[in-house]
């Protein structure tokens, strides 16, 4: 695969320490497109060895609006089925430029390790000194040991090491869309983290046409339904939580976006500093980046103050546990004290909800945001959401942004695929690829 690709699939056997590479075949891309299309195919190939697959969408890391998505696919400890989890911020983009399109991780390491992917090189490194530390300390330690603060990490904390079904693979210091317990899968493999740094280059089949189209789409989107909105609080408002902005406003520092995503889906709150501070805070850990809308909403509706809710979310990210699951179980028990909720992490168990029949993370709200997508009524949301998420996970579009930008149509995705790769994708093939990943 010559375009929008590094043309490499990496296979890492943690049991033997062996690393090998395959080429990314044009035919596979023509049929499966990218993202979950190919991670699903790779899962089927290696399913006897309980693999966990990392990948990026076909458009991830390009100038196409919203192209921030990386994907993790594995069998969920919580459902027993193959499911898919998004990772965004800058990690999806960074993965795309590591020099690998997909990474298949099989086997179990004899000792704790982390996988270091950079510039087309993969190293299995000793993580014994990180084992037992929380998510934040692990990311700090990896960045310090490599001397690069821009390294992105997919990392587990104590929850994953201890085999909790609620364990989450976090991104750097923050939550991710892993609502499937993939943190436990990492832990079972003695895999503490995957560290990503990409300085690669992606060629484009028809660069001028591709970039022209990116700018055209961007111009259309920029004045679209989400114009003037930002952060998790405006998403909550769009979901009907009318007082969300007022609730959290005293703590909001800034909003930030995942890679090339025109809507800033992340809200940073300061808990130990004045949120109005503009200079670099002296406090090393002044607050927390909220990127899990569902968790925040559940905690709010359970009656927690904004400060308490944010303290819970921060504790979840350090421990590496799914904040949506914690929020749901805490709400069910009636517990509102953030310290007591944190103390419950060690033994926390329980059944939590997942998208109906879904393979995609409920991290993306199951409804249109700001725009109406011409849906007749709420009964149409379910099928619409699954297809929309499938599209996002194939092409590498931020899955929350996909729900607020109807301009990112299937026809447009097909056009971008063809301009970017020089291959010929049809609507029929796209329909089949979506059907394959939704089965």
């Amino acid at each position, binding site marked *: 695969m010559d375009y*929008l690709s590094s043309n490499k699939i990496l296979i890492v056997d943690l049991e033997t320490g062996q690393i090998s590479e395959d080429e990314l075949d044009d035919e596979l891309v023509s049929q499966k497109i990218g993202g979950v299309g190919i991670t699903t195919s790779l899962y089927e190939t290696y399913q006897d060895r309980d693999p966990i697959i990392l990948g990026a969408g076909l458009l991830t*890391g*390009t*100038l196409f*609006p919203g192209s921030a998505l990386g994907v993790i696919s594995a069998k969920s400890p919580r459902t027993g089925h193959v499911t898919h989890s998004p990772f965004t911020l*800058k990690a999806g*983009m960074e993965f795309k*430029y590591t020099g690998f399109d997909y990474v298949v991780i099989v086997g179990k390491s004899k000792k704790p390790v982390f996988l270091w992917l950079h510039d087309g090189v993969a190293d299995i490194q000793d993580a014994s000194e990180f084992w037992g530390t929380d998510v*934040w300390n692990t990311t700090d330690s990896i960045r310090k040991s490599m001397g*690069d*603060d*821009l390294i992105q990490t997919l990392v587990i904390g104590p929850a994953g090491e201890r085999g909790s079904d609620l364990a989450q693979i976090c991104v*750097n*210091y923050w939550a991710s869309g892993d609502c499937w317990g993939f943190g436990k899968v990492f832990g079972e493999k003695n895999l503490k983290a995957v560290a990503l*740094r990409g*300085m*690669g*280059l*992606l*060629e*484009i089949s028809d*660069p001028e046409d591709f*970039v022209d189209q990116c*700018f055209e789409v*961007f111009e259309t989107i*920029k004045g679209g339904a989400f114009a003037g909105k*930002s952060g998790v609080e405006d998403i909550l408002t769009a979901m009907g939580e009318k007082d969300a902005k007022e609730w959290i406003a005293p703590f909001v*520092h*800034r*909003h*930030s*976006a*995942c*890679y*090339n*995503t*025109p*809507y*800033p889906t992340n809200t*940073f709150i*300061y808990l130990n500093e004045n949120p109005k501070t*503009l*200079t*670099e*805070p*002296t*406090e*090393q*850990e*002044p*607050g927390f*980046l909220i990127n899990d809308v569902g968790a925040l909403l559940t905690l709010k509706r359970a009656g927690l103050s904004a400060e308490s809710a944010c303290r819970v979310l921060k504790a979840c990210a350090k421990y590496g546990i799914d904040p949506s699951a914690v929020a749901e179980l805490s709400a069910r028990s009636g517990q509102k004290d953030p310290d007591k909720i944190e103390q419950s992490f060690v033994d926390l168990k329980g059944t939590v909800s997942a998208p109906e029949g879904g393979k995609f993370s409920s991290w993306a709200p199951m409804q249109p945001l700001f725009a109406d997508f011409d849906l007749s009524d709420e009964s149409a949301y379910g099928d619409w959401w699954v297809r929309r998420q499938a599209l996002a996970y194939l092409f590498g579009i931020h899955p929350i942004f996909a729900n607020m930008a109807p301009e990112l149509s299937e026809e447009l995705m097909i056009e971008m695929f063809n301009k970017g790769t020089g291959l010929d994708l049809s609507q029929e093939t796209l329909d089949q690829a979506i059907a394959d990943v939704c089965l």
Partner: protein
Amino acid sequence: MRIDVDALKCIGCMACEMACGYHRDDAFALLASCIVVYRARDKKDYFGVVIKEEESLTIARPEGLEIKRIGVTEESSDSGQKKEADASAKPMLLREPCDLCSGMKYGPMCVKICPVDAISLIEGGE
């Protein structure tokens, strides 16, 4: 004409950085960009933008804009805080200076691609 950045508007999406990289390489890559989002202090939510120009570095921080003449050593500020831009894979000083996307039909691509209009083209040289 030169590029101006309002760091308070910036959402750190890096679209400007990738657009600049495309201008340099006719492909998607970040190593040659002369506009860079500094984002290493993510735990503090402290981010902004650095632009390499012919004779200066423009550093757009949340608290304001600073223009540093390349090659001129300055005394450290009274606050004693680390003020330089974060190290990146390819040091800023080794990168090509901004040419306002000379030869590109779009004009300066970072201005065009910024979703929050944090980047603009203003009158005046360095």
